[in-house]
């Protein structure tokens, strides 16, 4: 029975997350259109049903499935095929430790709404997310093309630079919370929004958010694929479903990153002013869980919208500015934050 529950959890969460990706792509297209004062996708339809342009995503999937898959002669074939798989697989695997609702006690059994409550929690996220550098670097290298190589090298240098600042920002959060388990951290933040970490650890929150943008290679940090300089960067030579893998990986990264950000800084599944004990005491269990999961989803979608909003508002950084921001601003700020936090906590 427990095995069945575990397997069901794995499948439901995987499907739910994969379904968020097309929603996000739709949000990006429509959002960018309205930011630029145009209508966005509104032509594709099935029997006259347009769903506000959402059908375009389905059309895209079929288009990419039926496209010829070109592997350049000069490319390193095995790595060329492997790279998009690594990128997407890593992006999805990050989600394994995210809690979606408060644990529910049914008799003796405690039902947790996360795939795995790892005791290393945040360290797992850091370890897995740093693996995506490999996928991007290998993709850039194996295409055997100067622009792809530049894109891959730029991406890896950028991602590892911001990873340092991200890890250091997380250290101060861990000092403040005294735990690395995500579920515990969400529970500890409580139901009042002024107890959430974006209020208690504002500097760490800002550093983490900026590093998240850099890690996902999104504007204003999208130099690795800067289309005006190096065509499309590391996925220049890819076509058909392999390109779709990179495309999905970008959005899977945004979803995963938003989920981490929400869990760490925006109180995760905490419903404002309604602690889990109150919800579970006064409402049917299922309703309480649904309410928390919905609130979590709303927060995540808001964060995803933030990614899109920033992309269509800010221009791109220059590469030296980006490196300077990473090492000379983010890292020292994160170090100062650790010192301040540890002194405040030990008082």
């Amino acid at each position, binding site marked *: 029975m427990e095995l069945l529950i575990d397997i069901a959890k794995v499948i439901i*969460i995987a499907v739910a997350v994969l379904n968020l990706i097309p929603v996000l792509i739709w949000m990006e297209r429509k959002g960018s259109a309205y930011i630029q004062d145009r209508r966005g996708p509104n032509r594709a339809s099935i029997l006259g049903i347009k769903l506000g342009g959402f059908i375009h995503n389905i059309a895209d999937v079929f288009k990419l499935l039926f496209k010829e898959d070109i592997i350049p002669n*000069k490319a390193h074939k095995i790595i060329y095929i492997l790279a998009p798989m690594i990128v997407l697989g890593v992006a999805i695997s990050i989600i394994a430790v995210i809690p979606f609702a408060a644990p529910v006690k049914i008799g003796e059994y405690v039902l947790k709404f996360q795939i795995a409550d790892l005791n290393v929690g945040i360290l797992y996220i850091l370890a897995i997310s740093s693996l995506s550098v490999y996928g991007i670097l290998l993709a850039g290298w194996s295409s055997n093309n100067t622009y792809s190589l530049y894109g891959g090298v730029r991406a890896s240098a950028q991602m590892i630079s911001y990873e340092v600042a991200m890890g250091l920002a997380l250290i101060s959060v861990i000092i403040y919370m005294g735990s690395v388990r995500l579920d515990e951290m969400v529970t500890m933040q409580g139901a009042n929004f002024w107890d959430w970490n974006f209020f208690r650890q504002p500097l760490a929150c800002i550093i983490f958010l900026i590093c998240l943008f850099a890690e996902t290679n999104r504007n204003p940090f999208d130099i690795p694929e800067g289309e005006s300089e190096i065509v499309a960067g590391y996925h220049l030579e890819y076509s*058909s479903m392999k390109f779709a893998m990179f495309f999905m990986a970008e959005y899977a990264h945004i979803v995963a990153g938003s989920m981490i950000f929400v869990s760490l800084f925006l109180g995760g599944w905490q419903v404002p002013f309604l602690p889990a004990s109150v919800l579970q005491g006064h409402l049917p269990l299922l309703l309480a869980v649904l309410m928390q999961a919905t609130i979590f989803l709303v927060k995540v979608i808001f964060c995803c919208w933030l990614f899109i909003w920033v992309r269509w508002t800010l221009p791109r950084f220059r590469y030296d500015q980006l490196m300077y921001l990473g090492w000379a601003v983010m890292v020292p700020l994160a170090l100062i934050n650790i010192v301040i936090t540890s002194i405040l906590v030990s008082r």
Partner: protein
Amino acid sequence: MLSDFSLVLIFAIISALFIFGALFAGRFLRPSDPNTVKSETYECGEKAVGPAWIGFNIRFYLIALIFVIFDVEAALIFPVAAVFKKWIAAGQGLVALAEILVFIAVLVLGLVYVWVKGDLEWVKKFAQEHRNTGT
């Protein structure tokens, strides 16, 4: 009851299956009609000149080296950070604080060294070198 890490493994396997499935399904649907022109390197539409696997800017290696040092040190702070509150509760707060501060001091020292050497600046150092050598 599966252990937590095996659940993570199952999750990773399911995502891998999804990826393989998506790539494999396309195999039966898409045309395959390669020819010599089509399978040339695209790059930017023009004929690619010279090999692509060339040496690139040495700074990328430097950044990677700095990253390794910083990340290892950051990894060493994580355990201290995780037990910090427990140590304070046990009356060992000052020891833990001193430990963290020593680590941070080492990190800051490394950062200052790299900064003074000019490895964090991409353009300025280059221009200065040119001015100094008169080239």
